[in-house]
């Protein structure tokens, strides 16, 4: 986490907003100048509150000069108000636009990250970078930048005015105030460790709660509530202790700096009052009004010092968030396929030559795999759990790239064409059904947004989904919820209809029918049979009955294809396939 480089990246991001940033600074200066001068003119007005006695023996005050000061004060108020308002607007604009663009870049990244990145991380981790880190970064930027800059401007401005007015008193303010910084820094350096301890305790507790809440039904089924409560109690008490130290210590900063301020205030009163007595009657007296101005300046001057620790903490947090955000945005992408030709006019001949692949280096999975699939044939992949069937699909679709060897479609190495064109030629129904939170129609037309209404309905009918879709509250326009009202089986039927609409030259069906009851499945099989006609199809299924008609069966075991052939051939071979097949009827 090199902060300078993060800072530089932030600056690059801010570059397009340079005019707005300039406006922000101009507005800040205007607002600060207005505020400083209001105090100055109030002091001058107070100096005019000295009465004289007229001929009639009555006390009078000459309101003429007072009105003049009022005019000046009015102008300064207007300047400060305009400045403040412009500052907020310009700053909001920059912060929210930068936030939106960061969020967009991070989101866009999802689609170009290698799947291994996503598969190996919890969704929550990635989404919290895109959502909450981005938000906190922009908050830090918003708060940090405005406060830092206005604070700076205030310090400079007040110093100048004070030194012009009376350098003796200004020196007191200049030298004593930084004490509050020292105090704040002293506290902050101690707080940091405690905040880290708090964050760790919180992370530990959240991880536990997340997992147990996600598995609440299992927890109850195994009456594990008491054990959980005990474990949670320990984590909770630990967090309470850590939080107490962190929160109390950090909340001492304000009172301590406030005390330093009151010392400054008292010293200004002392020096100012003594000076007023000493200079009374001279050509340049230090008046009561001047003292008032200085007292209010000492408040204005110390305020940025008080806030600085808070601002810096916020800023550091923002930088940490930015670092995580940039790390995601700069994560190496899948090798670019820009400039590669599209895979055009596919017949569907698929070949794998000497393919090696593993998810992690320690555990090789697929070794020297060779497959030769003529166009239009139906390939069944069978084998025990964990033998690499799903992996094969990952490789065919190029969700993962092979470590060694190559896969060819129509004789072309799939790494030499665009991923998009490769995937467009595959239709896929996965083990886990995934539907968008959108209407049934949008979900069905996902792969083919331009299809006609009739095409869509035909596909739904073929997948036996039309009936239950019509029974949904708004038919094809029903919005599917996240957890939804559909059963797993119904979702799977929708996924099948979705593929039917694409009519790609190659199909991948991974456990496509595992959640549908067998009667419906029979009908779906029929629809699939029609769909598969003339298309190269890879089917992963545990049900041997569904693959008996395959042109080629690949029997996988521990990452390798151990047997291949038709159902009859394999049965007569009397090998592993036969063992698998017979197991079905053993019971």
């Amino acid at each position, binding site marked *: 986490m090199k902060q300078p480089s993060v800072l530089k990246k932030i600056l690059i991001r801010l570059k397009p907003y340079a005019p707005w940033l300039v406006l922000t600074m101009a507005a800040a200066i205007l607002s600060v100048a207005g505020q400083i001068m209001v105090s100055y003119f109030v002091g001058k007005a107070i100096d005019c509150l000295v009465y004289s006695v007229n001929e009639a023996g009555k006390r009078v005050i000459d309101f003429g000069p007072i009105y003049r000061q009022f005019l000046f*004060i009015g102008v300064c108020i207007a300047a400060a108000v305009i400045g403040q308002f412009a500052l*907020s607007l310009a700053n909001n604009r920059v912060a929210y636009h930068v936030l939106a663009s960061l969020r967009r870049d991070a989101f866009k990244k999802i689609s170009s990250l290698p799947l291994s990145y996503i598969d190996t991380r919890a969704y929550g981790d990635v989404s919290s970078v895109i959502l909450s880190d981005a938000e906190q970064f922009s908050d830090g930027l918003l708060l940090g930048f405005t406060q830092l800059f206005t604070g700076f401007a205030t310090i400079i401005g007040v110093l100048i005015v004070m030194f012009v007015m009376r350098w003796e008193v200004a020196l007191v303010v200049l030298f004593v105030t930084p004490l509050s910084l020292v105090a704040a820094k002293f506290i902050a350096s101690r707080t940091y460790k405690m905040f880290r301890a708090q964050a760790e305790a919180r992370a530990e507790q959240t991880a536990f*709660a997340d997992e147990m809440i996600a598995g609440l039904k299992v927890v109850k089924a195994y009456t594990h509530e008491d054990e959980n409560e005990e474990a949670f109690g320990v984590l909770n008490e630990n967090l309470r202790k850590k939080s107490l130290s962190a929160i109390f210590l950090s*909340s*001492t900063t304000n009172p301590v700096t*406030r005390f330093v301020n009151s010392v400054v205030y008292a010293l200004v009163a002392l020096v100012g*009052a003594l000076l007023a007595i000493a200079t009374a009657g001279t050509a340049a007296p230090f008046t009561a009004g001047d003292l008032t101005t200085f007292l209010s300046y000492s408040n204005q001057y110390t305020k940025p010092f008080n806030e600085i620790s808070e601002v810096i903490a916020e800023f550091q947090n923002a930088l940490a968030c930015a670092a995580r955000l940039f790390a995601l945005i700069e994560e190496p992408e899948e090798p670019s396929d820009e400039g590669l030709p599209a895979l055009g006019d596919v017949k569907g001949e698929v070949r794998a030559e000497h393919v090696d692949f593993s998810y992690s280096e320690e555990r090789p999975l697929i070794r020297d795999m060779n497959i030769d699939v003529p166009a239009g044939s139906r390939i069944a992949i069978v084998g025990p*759990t964990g033998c690499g069937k799903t992996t094969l699909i990952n490789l065919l679709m190029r969700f993962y790239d092979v470590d060694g060897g190559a896969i060819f479609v129509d004789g072309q190495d799939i790494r030499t064409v665009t991923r998009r064109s490769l995937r467009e030629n595959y239709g896929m129904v*996965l083990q886990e059904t995934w539907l968008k939170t959108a209407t049934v129609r949008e979900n069905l037309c996902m792969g083919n947004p331009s299809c006609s209404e009739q095409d869509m309905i035909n596909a739904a009918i073929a997948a036996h989904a039309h009936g239950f879709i019509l029974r949904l509250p708004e038919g094809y326009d029903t919005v599917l919820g996240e957890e939804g009202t559909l059963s797993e089986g119904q979702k799977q039927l929708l996924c099948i209809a979705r593929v039917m609409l694409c009519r790609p030259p190659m199909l991948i069906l991974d456990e496509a029918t595992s959640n549908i009851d067998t009667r419906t499945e029979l009908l779906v099989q029929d629809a699939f049979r029609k769909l598969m006609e003339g298309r190269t199809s890879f089917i992963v299924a545990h049900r041997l009955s569904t693959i008996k008609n395959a042109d080629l069966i690949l029997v996988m075991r521990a990452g390798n294809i151990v047997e291949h052939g038709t159902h009859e051939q394999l049965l007569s071979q009397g090998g592993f396939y036969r063992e698998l097949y017979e197991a079905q009827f053993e019971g």
Partner: protein
Amino acid sequence: MKRTALSQSAAKERTLKYLWKCLSSYKKEAILSPLFKLFEACMELVVPLVVAHIVDVGIATGDRMYIVHGMLLLVAFGAAGLAFALTAQYFAAKAAVGTSASVRGMLFTKLQSLSYEDIDLVGTSQMITLMTSDVNQVQAGVNHTLRLLLRSPIIVFGAAAMAFTVDVYAGIIFLVLIPLLAAVIVGVMAATAPLYKKVQEKLDGVNLSVRENLQGVRVIRAFCREEGELALFDGRNDDLCAAQKRAGRISAVTNPVTFCLVNLAVILLVFVGGVRVSMGSLAQGDVIALYLYITIILTELIKLANFIYIVAKAVSSARRIGDVLALPAEPDSYLPAEEGHGDRAVEFEDVTFTYRGGGAPALSDIAFSVGRGETVGILGGTGSGKSTLVSLIPRFYRAGSGSVKVGGVDVGAIPKETLRNIVAVVPQKTLIFQGTIRSNLLWGNGTATEEDLLWAVGVAQAEDVVAAKGGLDGEIAQEGKNLSGGQRQRLAIARALVRRPEVLILDDSFSALDYATDARLRAALRSVGCTTFIVSQRTASVRSADKIVVLDEGRIAGIGTHGELLKTCGLYREIDASQGGGEA
């Protein structure tokens, strides 16, 4: 929709009571903290008076000692203020942190005690938000309330009161100014509240996009929908940005307007001060003191606005938590205890069940009984009610009418812990938790021995899983991510077996297993001898059962052995044929 159902089910006026209960363990802190803040405020309020005396007495008479004394007094007040403030901060932090810890503990306990119906109602993602960000908001709210609740009004009204003691006419200016400032702050908040709600809604849309694109990454890539999804996200993202800017624009009004009002009041004050000085009823130093009081009010109001914002957020979080805490815990039992009789392990007597909010019953007129040690197959299509039926046995859901009995006793009369010790379920969605294989298996029975565990692993055909992870102490990642679906299923079965249950329910627990493993597992289970329910869509998995219950749309379509059903049940024949059974 979930949210409204939830808030309606909870009584409104009760929802914040729990907070008092949690806070009441910190009564001392909760009283002392504001009290010390009040002392601190008094220290601050004296300062302008001291300054006025320095000007009117010290400077006017040239008394240097008087000035030095005034200065020392100011420092002394500052030091006293510091001491009071530190004490107050400590008590506030202690009360806030302690309260939030109790709220968190209470919430966790409550979530664990909810019935399955209420778990469905609240939903996992909301539970996690409640436990984390909502509780944190409450903590910040309590902390700030204790610190500022008394301080801010005391400072604001104290400053006004002090102004009255200085001069009545000047005091009237304060009386007008304070409501005006309050109106601005309240007005801006009222105007921005709906806008911030909009922002939240737009944010939900962006969240949805991100979550969907992570979870559906394979499908989106397979259908080459990356650009479409990005366009959709862009729309939502831009909406969010626009909503944020709109809300920000209105909030931006607060500071300039309060600044303007306060300084106009200063002009008025100087004018009135001038008139009063000329009448001889005010000294110059008094006007300075009044000016300083106005400045104090301005500073305090800025703090107050921020405070109200934090408290408003905390209150809405606290209400959300309260809604959940108001849900009833699942009762230990529904019916008075009764003695068990009969040799039937499980009986269903005319059971009908409807899910909350569901229109049609999920189960109707279910009646059958199972003898001890028997194996029962529950067969049926998607949505036919198989899982619902078995979840009534451990009383995850309560039968609407009719009765479910275990060992001759209505499950409503068996304390839930006892019941769930007798009945072990392997759910359809297998969940394995972070830890080791051993720690997961011990869920079944905390006192199980090494042999017990190895025996369960053996029956569940999970020896290879244990071997692959390097023994029983092999690490399991969160949610069992480092296991395949089939490995998880077998460990989940082993976990149930460790319990040595009288009734074992396997809810479609073989779906990720290949046929060979499936068959070996079933054979091994038969040797265990407990009453076993096997829920499945495949006839092969239930073929050898002593009894098969065929379900169709929540009703029993047939009961019998494989052979009997082939003769008597058309639906069973059809299902069996569709799975290639006829050819075997």
